[in-house]
């Protein structure tokens, strides 16, 4: 199912503010998305997962700045390039055509004053200027059909659609240019559970047909376990563990991952006791020294308070397919 890397994030750093007042929201994140893969990104609010998504697409509002790193994109047609090195025009061309995003606000993602059709076709107009108006309309209709919306809703305004329908429109819009990567930022949090599963199931099916890769961001680890191939866990702006979904669910190495898994009921698999994580997420302004999770960690010991653990493969049997940043699992240096 997974293939070559399509998107490689290398030591990405994102700050809010400049100079001394800067708050480091994302720190030295390394992540690789492979062709055709669903990569889940989980963490509490404030862990930096959304900032990471906005950072790599350069959509962060001021005072957000990218203070370092590379986002290498392997285009099937145009070779390999760094997204962070693109000029404005290059970035505009890259956006949506290569990487589309489904945002968390289903209600507010659509422009309230324009028809659905306008919002579907303006993206075609920007990226494929040679396309005729008729062809654009046909394409928009096709996308709506793909996500299960009747073509006669083309002329509807956003306020005339239900929340679920709007999110489907957003998914259809995200796929209209057949991008290689789709980033989904809490795409279904505003919807009820039934609608959530229906839409996600549909998306996975579409992925199998169209072959794009997905970065799926949510705080709901149970959804990730069910729908993604690999999962990365973020805490305090860093990735603390990354592993295949099944491996992470069965045997999480980082105490924080274990805590997250223990804070909601599993949908499948054996029953287990619900626990929470004591304490609250760290304040980005006053990040603890050493491992940022150490003040809340039930297994804290000597090195944690002073030394930042490195993300690397642990010395477990399946160590080659996963990484973790925890002093309990020192990195195997080859």
């Amino acid at each position: 199912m997974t293939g070559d890397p399509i998107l490689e994030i290398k030591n990405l750093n994102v700050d809010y503010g400049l100079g001394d007042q800067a708050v480091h929201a994302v720190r030295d994140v390394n992540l690789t998305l492979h062709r055709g893969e669903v990569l889940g990104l989980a963490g509490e609010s404030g862990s930096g997962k959304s900032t990471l998504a906005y950072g790599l697409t350069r959509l962060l509002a001021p005072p957000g700045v990218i203070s370092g790193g590379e986002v290498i994109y392997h285009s099937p047609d145009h070779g390999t390039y760094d997204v962070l090195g693109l000029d404005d025009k290059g970035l505009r061309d890259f956006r949506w055509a290569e990487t589309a995003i489904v945002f968390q606000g289903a209600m507010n993602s659509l422009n309230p004053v324009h028809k659905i059709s306008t919002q579907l076709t303006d993206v075609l107009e920007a990226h494929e200027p040679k396309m005729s108006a008729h062809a654009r309309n046909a394409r928009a209709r096709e996308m709506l059909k793909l996500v299960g919306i009747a073509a006669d809703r083309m002329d509807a305004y956003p306020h005339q659609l239900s929340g679920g329908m709007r999110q489907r429109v957003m998914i259809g819009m995200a796929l209209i240019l057949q991008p290689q990567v789709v980033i989904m930022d809490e795409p279904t949090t505003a919807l009820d559970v039934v609608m959530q599963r229906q839409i996600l199931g549909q998306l996975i099916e579409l992925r199998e047909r169209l072959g794009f890769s997905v970065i799926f961001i949510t705080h709901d680890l149970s959804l990730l376990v069910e729908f993604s191939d690999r999962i990365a866990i973020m805490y305090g702006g860093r990735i603390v563990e990354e592993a295949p979904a099944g491996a992470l669910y069965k045997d999480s190495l980082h105490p924080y991952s274990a805590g997250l898994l223990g804070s909601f009921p599993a949908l499948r698999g054996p029953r287990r006791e619900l626990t929470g994580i004591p304490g609250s997420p760290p304040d980005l302004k006053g990040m603890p020294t050493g491992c940022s999770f150490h003040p809340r960690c039930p297994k804290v010991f000597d090195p944690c308070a002073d030394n930042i653990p490195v993300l690397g493969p642990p010395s477990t049997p399946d160590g080659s397919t996963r990484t973790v940043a925890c002093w309990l699992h020192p990195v195997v240096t080859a």
Partner: protein
Amino acid sequence: MKYLIQRILFYVFTAWAAITLNFFIPRMIPGDPVKALLSRFQGQMSSDAIESLYILFGLDKDKSLWQQYLDYWVQLFHGDLGLSFTAFPSPVSEVISDALPWTLGLVGVTTIISFFLGTGLGVLAGWRRGSWVDGLLPATTFLSSVPYFWLGLLAIFLLAGPDSFFPSSGGYEPGLVPAWDQYFIPSALQHSLLPALTILISSVSGWILSMRNMMVTVSAEDYITVAHAKGLSDRRVALSYAARNALLPNVSGFALSLGFIVGGTLLVEIVFSYPGLGFLLFRAVTAKDYPLMQGIFLVITISVLVANLIADIAYLLLDPRTRKEG
């Protein structure tokens, strides 16, 4: 449609309230100044005219208040607003209809220009924070704090004069006859430039500021981020997404503040002795010409209500959410 009907009903109600207010205000005037004026013109007035003034000012003490109110309405429906004392023996309605086109031309046109200009600059200031338009804000704040009429005085002092291109008073060259011809129209335009500029300068900053703030607010909306993520051109995101939405509250704001603006701009006419309603109101106040004052207030109010209705219709066309299906 339902929205529009609601609005129309509201304006009818407001018009009724204004007319009723207009009925009661003269009844507060102590010492019967109207009676004094009436006696001055005794013999020169027809009995009909006297009757109409009696109704307007409630001088007929024999009638009940309710009867007076009914008579007042009947009279209004005949378009009879009484006789003007200053322009004796012209009826108020005639005096007002002479002045109204001047005001509509000056205040109406400038207010619209000011709205569009200010909104446009506000879009720029809000979209490009920290650009030169932002630098304009302190200056415009200062200008909007100045009463319009004082700015007019200053404009006359600095720019007008016997040798200047700008005439310092009047609506057209004395000696010309108002007509749609090649002598009158250029002269009227020339005379309106300075007052128009005065109104423009002092009213435009309000629109810049409110549109800027709306742009800043709208820029943080999700659909703007989506528009950027879609790789649309900056122009399209700024205009079709941000400005298009920011315009909505500004249009309803336009409707609501028309009453404020018109009140202030009318006074510019006084400074320039411009032959519109504002100058007429000034003359009426100075001469204690109560029938004329009442009439002008009524006409201004009705005009503002009509302008409001037009702004509402514009809003209806701009915001699909107020349009109901079917």
